[in-house]
């Protein structure tokens, strides 16, 4: 079956503009995660969705970042008033609800803020 897909693959924007990044998880995966990978650094957790539970937003770096998920399908990560430090690869992952289960990652969206 299809893996996790993300769009766009690349996004170049100007400082101060808003951007939306999209993630399509694997069908049947109830858990969905967003991570950020800045150049030369590891992946940072941003937000986690699990079924109908309230999302875990503990990793969002500022109130300019928000995310939504429609049921157990598509998720969008929105960054408002982008800053140069937001430049990174944004990765989405999905998994079954089982603790310790493998997270399957998408190819990422490379965001460049000029």
């Amino acid at each position, binding site marked *: 079956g299809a893996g*996790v897909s993300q769009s766009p693959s690349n996004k170049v924007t100007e400082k101060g503009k808003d951007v939306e990044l999209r993630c399509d998880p694997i069908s049947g995966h109830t*858990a969905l*995660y967003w*991570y950020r990978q800045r150049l*030369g*650094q*590891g*992946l*940072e*957790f941003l937000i*986690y969705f*699990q079924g109908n*539970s309230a999302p*875990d937003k503990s*990793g969002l770096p500022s109130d300019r970042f928000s995310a939504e998920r429609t049921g157990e399908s598509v998720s969008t990560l929105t960054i408002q008033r982008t800053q140069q430090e937001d430049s990174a690869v944004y*990765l989405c*992952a999905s*998994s079954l609800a089982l*603790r*310790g*289960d*493998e*997270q399957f*990652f*998408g*190819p*990422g969206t490379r965001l460049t803020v000029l």
Partner: protein
Amino acid sequence: AQSVTQLDSQVPVFEEAPVELRCNYSSSVSVYLFWYVQYPNQGLQLLLKYLSGSTLVKGINGFEAEFNKSQTSFHLRKPSVHISDTAEYFCAVSLRSGTASKLTFGTGTRLQVTL
């Protein structure tokens, strides 16, 4: 809070030589342990994971890792590397309890295999 340390940012090695990539973690509660690999221009892929049971875990592509609770380590090893193993390797942990299974990653180790 938990943290993961990968002391080596880069590891150069010749083809067919053995390799060990080091990973140490810190956590006040029990964790699950993972190694992910990111090949050039590709997404992350799970190499192996430790959930419970035998402390020696075997993964894909001939890699294995050993969980050492006393040293809070989960080092990755391969007895003989191939050019195709050139990639970025990430160690990660997730909590065994609580409501979230988010991963906490190390900063990665770039394995460069040459002839």
